[in-house]
């Protein structure tokens, strides 16, 4: 149906595409640790050794865990398997709340204590008006 040249050109493109996709897939796969924006408390617990570098820990702010003492804010990040206690002093974003997603950037003191230098709130995929939220909670 199509000429030999047309087929050749098509396979040429296909081959370039497959080669590049594979290469990029392998690169990303090997860089996985650096591509993730944050680690979960469970992943922190599994670290073979503590490193001094700045890292990010993410998860949910545990319910009833936020406490403010003088200039210091303490709360617990949980992924429902492991927990990590975070200490922070500074301004938190508006969406920061108990039971909501959070990413803390800072340094590990040990595997249970984290000294945050920056707090980011993480939003979830749910978008709804307040009335709908109230209706869902009322059920």
């Amino acid at each position, binding site marked *: 149906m199509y000429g030999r040249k*047309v087929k050749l050109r098509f396979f040429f493109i296909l081959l370039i595409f497959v080669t590049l996709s594979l290469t990029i897939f392998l690169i990303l796969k090997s860089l996985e640790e650096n591509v993730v924006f944050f680690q979960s408390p469970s992943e922190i617990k599994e670290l073979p050794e503590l490193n001094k570098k700045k890292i990010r820990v993410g998860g949910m702010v545990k319910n009833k865990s936020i406490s403010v003492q003088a200039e210091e804010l303490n709360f617990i990040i949980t992924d429902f398997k492991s927990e990590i206690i975070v200490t922070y002093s500074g301004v938190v974003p508006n969406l920061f709340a108990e039971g909501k997603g959070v990413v803390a950037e800072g340094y590990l003191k040990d595997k249970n204590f984290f000294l945050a230098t920056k707090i980011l709130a993480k939003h979830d995929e749910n978008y709804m008006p307040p009335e709908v939220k109230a209706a869902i909670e009322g059920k």
Partner: protein
Amino acid sequence: MFKYFELNKIFSITSKAPKYVLLLFIIVLSIGLFEALIFSPEDYKQGDAVRIMYVHVPSAWISLGIFSLITLLSIVGYTFKIKNFFLISKSLAPSGFIFNIIALVTGSIWGRPTWGTWWAWDARITAMLILALFYLLYLLAWRIFEDKDKVFKATLMITILGIINVPIIKYSVDWWNTLHQPASINIFTKSSIDISMLFPLMIMTAAFALFSLLIFLMKYNTELIKIKNKGLDRL
């Protein structure tokens, strides 16, 4: 297959279409803005900040869509030697680039009040920045190469390289931990965005698509005029 297109036939459409598209765009955009800014509810968690979504998300979609379309047109155009497809791609690229930039900028504005940061090296944001660079490369290639065959090959290679980035943007939130939340709109399962917010989002997407079409028609028209001036009667 399509060996050539009748220039005058295409031109008679592309030279008249813009004013109708403009009219339609203004109507759809007005409805979209009213829906997005006034009639749609605020979010239970984000409050009014959620309204940035009605610009941010459609822009990102359109820029991804246009890049995919450009790639498809370039591949088909190269395989079957259809020069017209390269001209269509060339005319599509500027609006895709603009919407890419709009998505990055509005994302930054949205990130400050909600996440607490203007910028984060999250996988999706970084991939979106890379897409903007690919758009830039694509647009520059058209300016740098003067020889037709060279420019077709260069832009083809840029699109093939760049298209690999598109699924990475889409699935980055599922593959890795990112600051971006997972997808809210799902075709096969229930979407986690309320219908009262989904509606203005769709209208705004339609408005941006119409805007892209308008810019495309104007750019494409210019390309056709250039060919006409050279005294050729076909592409």
